[in-house]
């Protein structure tokens, strides 16, 4: 352990602002990328479901007409 207390760990020997800013921005950017990846998948699923529902409606309409 390089630090004696939590306080010292947060302060980082006076460089706390820079170190935590760097780590914060880095992991925020990675989080954005991960969430974006999951979001794309959810979007694909939603589109698929919508498409399916549309097809079902079309099929029903066809049945009603005939």
């Amino acid at each position: 352990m390089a630090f004696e207390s939590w306080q010292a760990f947060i302060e980082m020997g006076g460089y706390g602002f820079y170190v935590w800013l760097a780590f914060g921005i880095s992991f925020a950017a990675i989080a954005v990328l991960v969430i974006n990846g999951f979001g794309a998948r959810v979007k694909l699923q939603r589109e698929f479901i919508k498409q399916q529902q549309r097809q079902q409606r079309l099929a029903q309409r066809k049945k009603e007409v005939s």
Partner: protein
Amino acid sequence: MWRWLHPYAKPETVYHLLGRWLPWVAGTATLMLAAGMVWGLAFAPADYQQGDSYRIIFVHVPTAMLSMSLYVGLALSALIGRVWQLKMADWALSAIAPVGLTFTFISLVTGAIWGKPMWGTWWEWDARLTSQLILLFLYIGVLALYHAFSDNRSGAKAAGILAMVGVINIPIIRYSVEWWNTLHQGSTLTVFERPPMANSMLVPLLVSILGFSLLAASLIFQRMRNEILRQELRRPWVKQELAELATQQPAMKEQS
């Protein structure tokens, strides 16, 4: 060899293969990253010159290394896509580019933040930072060109050509330190020499490099899987796959 490789060029096989690997790779990446970060932030000793500010190295160096190798990977998949006309390589290109862009961005920002306490300025026009900025522009160019085409296939081809042209810039980036020789310190890690770094700092750095590499791999796998689904949306196996997922999440059905 081609007979053995051929089934792996099928989107469905690749999709499932990546799906099988993804949890393992992502899990190991999380573990390694957590270990590397905690080790680097809390347990590695402070640098005798730079104090605790050097701890930024544990994100800066891995992302900077990966930003360049991911660009090479981008150009390689573009080359494979061109030579063997593999759709899969085109999709890999579109999966790698955003990951590489993010890593380049991270390495630039952490470099700038590190520069403030060390050099007294947020931005220094030195060789390394500048070439990293050029790399960022190159990534942006590739992505912008890819998205400018309404047809994904020509988009990937055009972006691939640009990536191959841009990869000529990688050696300039690599050797820019020797060429311009300004205030940035030399490369921290070299393959042939033993780096002048204490083991107590080097080992956590290597752990985080490995962690970030696995993270990059899992992000690419995730995006590649999405891309395969998007491109093959009309195929029966994709419909089956998505239908299965939809039944697993009934809440989503009500939403839409």
